[in-house]
């Protein structure tokens, strides 16, 4: 039986655990039945160690749930980045990680043999030249080392740290990295830059920040490469529906041409928007449902698909393309009432959250909002956020209109039916 270690070799093995601990939080050991109980125990111990300040436990009878909870608006750095910093390494890896830059920091390039000799003389460490060569090749691939040919041999040097090579960029660059590590895609990389400069973010916080996105970055990288190269991809995806309960549903394999990453700032989800030749329509896949991405051949019609997407996007409320481009969009209209003097924030909301819909003042205090939607069902959550102020709601798709009013009626029944809902409130 292998010894427990804080560090791991493969990221995909812990991705779903981190997600379940953070998003759900109510799961107990019995709910993680895809792997053995010992695997769960080890992963739980890792979570407790990586996220120690944010781990809570809840005892319910003889079952204990361990979960990760935090207010993202208070975080200087996304704590989930810790999961990315858990890669295991060997003794040679860490030794050379510090000795090579220390030795080569004088700016004088050296051959492998010279490096081996000097490591022995200066640090009393013996490494075989093959180990050093492999490590320097790795550093060169990762952009840390520089190789140049002199005569018949290769000489290796190390790149200069930015703060030394460009002191005039600081502290501005440090501030920018502090901000973008929380506000840009692949923010984890920004946090590693702060690590490399021995700095921390003392200046910025991020409201409504969906920290969970970082777990999808590993699949996002090859998708972006495919988009850059205008390639098709093969996706391995698993349904995200009802992930609260263990599912034995198999993963699906799909071929698609990736076109755009659609990021929701309000629901915590990110999607890949792609053209599917098999169905001849646009599809979206939640990034957290994608388990693997494989690059295929370039798509000769990539630019055509992209142009078609640009034409379709103005009709898409969220991420659903409905039956576009086969059929036209649906029309949704709602009338909203408010006191124009006291409640001008409602008008602000309609204007700034309306995503290009048209707004007409029918009479003082009554505004009509209209928009074309590829799939009007997606419009419903926003419409419902105006509950209490909607005078009329109409949709060219009767099922959508029906659902809206059904939902309103159900809410009335719940909050005003027999008894008082407040009786549920625990003291």
């Amino acid at each position, binding site marked *: 039986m292998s010894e427990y270690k804080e560090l791991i070799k493969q990221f995909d093995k812990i991705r779903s655990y981190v997600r379940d601990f953070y998003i759900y939080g109510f799961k107990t050991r019995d709910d993680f039945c895809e792997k053995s109980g010992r695997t769960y125990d080890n992963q739980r111990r890792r979570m407790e160690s990586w996220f120690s300040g944010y781990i809570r436990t809840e005892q319910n009878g003889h079952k204990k749930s361990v979960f990760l909870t935090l207010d*993202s608006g208070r975080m200087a750095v996304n704590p989930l980045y810790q999961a990315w910093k858990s890669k295991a390494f060997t003794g040679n890896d860490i030794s050379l990680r510090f000795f090579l830059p220390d030795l080569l920091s004088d700016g004088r390039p050296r051959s492998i043999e010279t490096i081996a000799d000097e490591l022995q003389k200066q640090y009393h460490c013996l490494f075989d030249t093959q180990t050093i060569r492999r490590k320097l090749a790795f550093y060169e691939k990762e952009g840390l080392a520089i190789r140049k040919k002199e005569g018949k041999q290769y000489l290796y040097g190390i790149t200069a740290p930015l703060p030394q090579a460009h002191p005039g960029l600081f502290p501005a660059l440090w*501030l920018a990295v502090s901000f973008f590590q929380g506000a840009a895609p692949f923010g984890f990389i920004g946090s590693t830059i702060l690590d490399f*400069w021995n700095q921390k973010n003392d200046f910025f916080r991020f*409201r409504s920040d969906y920290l969970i996105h970082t777990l999808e970055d590993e699949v996002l990288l090859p998708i972006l490469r495919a988009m850059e190269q205008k390639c098709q991809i093969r996706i391995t995806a698993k349904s995200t529906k009802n992930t609260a309960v263990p599912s034995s549903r198999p993963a699906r394999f799909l071929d698609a041409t990736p076109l755009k990453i659609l990021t*929701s700032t*309000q629901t915590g989800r990110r999607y890949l928007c792609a053209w599917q030749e098999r169905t001849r329509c646009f599809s979206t896949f939640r990034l957290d449902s994608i388990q693997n991405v494989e690059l295929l051949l370039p798509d000769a019609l990539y630019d055509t698909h992209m142009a078609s997407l640009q034409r379709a996007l103005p009709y898409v409320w969220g991420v659903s393309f409905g039956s576009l481009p086969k059929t036209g969009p649906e029309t949704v209209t709602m009338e909203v009432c408010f006191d124009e003097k006291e409640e001008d924030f409602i008008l602000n909301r309609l204007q700034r959250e309306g995503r290009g819909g048209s707004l007409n003042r029918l009479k003082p205090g009554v505004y009509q909002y209209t928009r074309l939607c590829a799939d009007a069902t997606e419009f419903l959550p926003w419409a419902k956020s105006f509950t209490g102020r*909607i005078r009329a709601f109409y949709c060219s798709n009767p099922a959508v209109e029906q659902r809206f009013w059904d939902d309103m009626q159900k809410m009335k029944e719940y909050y005003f039916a027999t008894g008082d809902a407040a009786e549920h409130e625990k003291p």
Partner: protein
Amino acid sequence: MKSHDFSLFSELYTCYYQVVARILSEAARHPLTRRQMENLARQHGYDESALSIVPRLIQGDWPFFSQDGHPPDTYASVLKNDPFPQPLTGLQKSWLKALAADARFRLFFTDSQLKELEEALWDTPPLYRTTDFSLFDQYGDHDPFSSAMYREHMLVILNAICERHFLSVGYLSRKKKILTHTWLPCRLEYGQRDGKFRLYAMAFGKTGRKRMDVLNVARILSIQKTGRYYPALVDVDHFLDRSLCEKPLVLEVTTKRNALERAMLHFACYQKKVERQEDGKTYRCTIYYDKRWETELLVQVLSFGPVVKVLGPKPFLDRIRERVGNQALPMGRKGDSYYDKSDLF
């Protein structure tokens, strides 16, 4: 080297390397005791990292320390240099290059700094293109990042936060009044949903009492240094603790329409607790929130409709009931008010 050949999950970024680097950095100044190493490992590592790292350093498995010629029980670094700052990897540079195309990036730099950075990264491909992403539901009135005045204000604010100096600010209030006041800028908050920067700035009342004000950076009309400095760090969170809710919001979430999954993701940014109810079909979600954002939370809850129900606290429930109670239903539906569709269309 293509930008996407890099690996995100790499030993180069491992937490242990950073812990060891911090220990070596401290040891570059003076030899360390085991206790000092353990403290640094606890401060910068995972919860159990000290148990793995320090013995290997002490025993020489990771041969960065020597005891020769130093006081007993202390360990000196064998490195010649402080390991910080470290050179950036291609992945890190590639990320920086991608940021350069972001409209917000210019807010941090002068024109000459931008030019210098562009030259420093001239041969680095960007990790992604900003056009690859679409924030499809971000509010339409985000801050004017391209405005020269806005950029100028941001540079002054950033400098003032770093150096802790007071600023005299002319500000257009929500009620369209122009205020002029002296504030100590402490922190910037960025809202992903609305694309706005908010400045958390400390002000002193007439009695000398400190308070934390929140200013929309886009509403700042003028800004200038006062020449006065504040000697200490300001604990912004201490001020914010006062606005935390006394009683958390309690919701009942069903599994219909994938509501549990949607709600848990939606409310993931809050501190929360979720419990499975005995019926196995509903979940009780307790959310701890900042009272300043209560209306925003209320709107979010309403957007879920009947699949998310408010159980308490009573003031929040009353607000929900008021909204639901005010909602008219079409004629013919069971409810306390109605509208006649024929009047409207």
